[in-house]
């Protein structure tokens, strides 16, 4: 429990600092708010910028997700390698090799080049 008290104590000062930053700004900055248009190098917008952004690297996100899930296994694995022995290393790197085969395939399909 003591540790969590410390983490809470850790949140306190920065929270106070962040409040202080906004409070100082409120106290010292000119009053009110300047409502501006978006910066478009001197032009006015023709439409709202919020839109369905065309993410051309979406294929990379899929490969990433596959790998990222696997990474979760690697954290506990790192703890038991010495106790389990060679079996752990071989199994993990066989698994990683399979994933890398997927990466090589994605690479050949051009997933990492999108422009």
């Amino acid at each position: 429990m003591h540790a969590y008290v410390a983490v809470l104590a850790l949140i306190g000062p920065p929270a106070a600092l962040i409040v202080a930053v906004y409070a100082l700004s409120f106290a010292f900055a000119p009053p009110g708010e300047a409502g501006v248009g978006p910066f478009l190098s001197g032009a006015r917008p023709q439409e709202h910028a919020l839109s369905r952004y065309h993410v051309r690297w979406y294929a990379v996100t899929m490969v990433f997700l596959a790998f990222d899930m696997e990474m979760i296994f690697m954290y506990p694995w790192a703890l038991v390698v010495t106790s389990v022995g060679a079996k752990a290393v071989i199994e993990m790197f066989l698994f990683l090799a399979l994933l890398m085969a997927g990466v090589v395939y994605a690479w050949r399909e051009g997933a990492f080049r999108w422009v």
Partner: protein
Amino acid sequence: MSDGAPVGAAVALPLVLAGLAYSAAVMDAAFRTGDGPAAPLRESVLLLLRQRRRTLASDVPLVRIGVISLPVAALLAAAVIPLDGGPGGSRVWNLPVSVVWFNAMEVVAWASLWLAGWGANSAFPLVGGYRFLAQGLAYELPHMFALITASLGAGSLDFGAIAAAQDEVWFAVWMPVAFAVYLLSALAMAFWGPMEHPVADDLGGGAAAELSGPDRLLFFAGRLALVAVAAAAAVPLFLGGGAGPWLPGWAWTLIKTVAVLALLVWLRGRWPVIRMDRFMTAAWAVLIPAALLQALVVGVVVLD
């Protein structure tokens, strides 16, 4: 600082982190404009003196969550880093899986940048926010492999134990690839130096283009804090923690942290910005295999 006083450490940590971030800003100003130690203070005071500014139909809560989460995430990541670099040493949170927590806090930056970029309702920040997501896809896996390689070398996910495992030889010496990958991915995580494309000037400052006043202050202070945390974590992970002759552990931790921090700040001017449409292939075809091979080598070594 004794190990019975994590609350004391909790008070000291924000100060240490702020000090490190400020010194990073001073070094950066010195490298860039030859300005003195007051330069970051001037910037901060200026930002506190500016009228509030709001873009048309912007989502202020989103932007603010993005901005505030940066320094908070940096601090929470720092909470598990041992201040004196030793096992069971003084740190705010004696978490046995501190590496995982550290990694989780770093990933908050993905949300921070995207929220700040999306919320402004402006085209340049929008593009900047998405640039960082692409950057995340490129750097995050090599970064995690570097963290896991160090953990594997020590058989522990605890920063203190990892530092203690380097009694004889630093991990930076016998796993240099992991160390190099860690530094590069730390630059990317803190969108700093050659990895600052998400906030680059070619789009008027990218994700930060519309930030002004206290928002801008917290955003860039948070970024510096991330750089500082990344430098501080490199010490227990790869540089032997607080080990060193004559001086106490906390002093060695501080010296090593400032050295890594100076390196990261200095690197800023050394390279042009790296774009993800070029870097993505290199990240997956070179960095990840290299980091995996390093992990394999370490795995084989720890078996003996």
